[in-house]
């Protein structure tokens, strides 16, 4: 028998795994985070509660929604490749006529669809209490951050075991280091330019979630950085051993 594995059909199983193991958790965390942040505010403000972008709550909503999107990507990326290697699941998966690159590239895309659906659901809830909050804009922002952050996460998951922690550390570390050394005009300011362009996220979040636009250079930086690391992850997967 020489038939190839039915990877496209298997994407349904991958999506099911996402929903059961990560998607439900993402929605619950996002909902609870939003609820404990905004329900007390809504009660306190009473009749003063406004659902437009001039509301004082808008800035908080931007911050929280952006953070929920980042956290969702972290959860989605956790162990994407490394769990299969660590636990030895790769043995049965890849003794079948399946290309590991195609398998994990598809997994990355399926999880992206899962994250975007979860974000669409959460933003629909946010839209109910805050009509100015655009579901479409937030989903587009989530897609951007998934590729930017998820691309690095994918690379880390291929390269090391503790991918989730490392991704969080790199993301936060880049923010701190860029804040400290970025404004200086020395070698350190040039060195931090190599770090993930997290400093561009705030502006992108404000403009993209707010009015659906963003500076092209910021979007290109974020997408390019993520896609570059995603491609590097695929290269490592191609040339390194699947087994530890």
């Amino acid at each position, binding site marked *: *028998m*020489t*038939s*190839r*594995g*039915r*990877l496209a*059909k*298997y994407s349904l*199983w991958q999506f099911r795994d996402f929903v059961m193991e990560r998607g439900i958790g993402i929605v619950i965390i996002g909902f609870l985070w939003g609820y404990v942040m905004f329900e007390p505010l809504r009660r306190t403000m009473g009749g003063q509660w406004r659902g437009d972008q001039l509301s004082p709550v808008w800035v908080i909503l931007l911050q929280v929604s952006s953070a929920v999107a980042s956290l969702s990507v972290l959860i989605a990326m956790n162990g994407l490749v490394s769990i299969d290697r660590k*636990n*030895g*699941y*790769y*043995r*049965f*998966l*890849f*003794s*079948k*006529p*399946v*290309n590991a690159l195609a398998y994990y590239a598809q997994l990355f895309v399926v999880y992206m669809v899962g994250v975007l659906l979860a974000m669409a659901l959460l933003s629909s809830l946010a839209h109910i209490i805050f009509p100015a909050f655009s579901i479409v804009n937030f989903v587009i922002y989530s897609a951007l951050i998934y590729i930017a952050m998820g691309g690095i996460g994918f690379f880390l998951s291929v390269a090391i075991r503790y991918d989730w922690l490392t991704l969080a550390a790199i993301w936060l570390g880049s923010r701190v280091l860029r804040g400290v050394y970025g404004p200086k005009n020395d070698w350190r300011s040039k060195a931090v330019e190599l770090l993930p362009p997290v400093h561009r996220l705030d502006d992108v979040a404000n403009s993209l979630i707010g009015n659906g636009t963003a500076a092209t250079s910021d979007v290109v930086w974020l997408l390019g950085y993520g896609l570059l690391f995603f491609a590097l992850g695929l290269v490592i997967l191609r040339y*390194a*051993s*699947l*087994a530890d």
Partner: protein
Amino acid sequence: MDFLSPTSNGDRAPAIVIEFKNVGKTYKSLLGNSVKAVEEFSLVVGEGEILGIAGPNGAGKTTLIAMMLGFLRPTTGSIEINGAPARQYVEQNGIGYLSELIAIPSKWRADTALVRYATLAGLPDAEISGRVGYVIELLGLEEHRDKKVKALSKGNLQRLGLAQALLRDEKILVLDEPTHGLDPVWTQRFRDIVEDLRRPDRTMLIASHNLDELQRLADRVAIIDRGRLQRLVATGYEQAPSATTRFRIAVARGHEMVRAAFPQAEVAGRDEFDVTVHGIQELNSALANLIAQGVLIASVVPERSVLEQQFREAVGES
């Protein structure tokens, strides 16, 4: 081709299916220490052959199999399957593989795990249900099919691992410690299954600690130790050596006549004798003599099988 000569039955030499070409694997630590897991391993396996791989713990059996499936890259040399690089062959054709460590996500149900693997194996939807049902019945997993993997016993998990390896009608099967954790009933059942799987166009590799199992199932056994191929042993009895061998003979009637045929026979128990002969020709002559005199032989068991004897010599044990 002499690599298959001990087991070849026909005139035509079987085609080479798997070829290890001077394969080596060295693990290096971050501190620069290196361990050679496999060294200069060369071997060819022919179509229709069952090759056993035997060796003590840490001999390099599993590393060798991992390289054959393309999970590990050899440091030196190469492995080809049907003329293609090993990993390329596996990605294009698949291999029925049972690993030593049965690693299936614990939350999966036994039957859905098989459906998933069948999908990855490329079985069409119309065939999946039937094939999954077949392997579940073959491996006696009917009452466990709804259970989660984490709820399965070691033996049932092993059977589930074997079931996923048999989902397709594979041309190549690789079984690493296949009877590990199986009870005696299922160990025997496994042997029957392997015998049923034997086909002229199917090649099988079985790595095992169990020499008796390999003696029964394999055509040849590669004995490896410290990462090197130490010896290649044909298991057929026509290859039995002419060297001195000890047997235990049990006699049902006429035990007083045993010493006449075997002067050096030692009493090993009630109606049992240990005898030393120089080759099976001498054994058969002496037994024929005893039987002609009315002695009733209950059993003749070699103290060590041909394989066990070779194994002990190869790995330096006595």
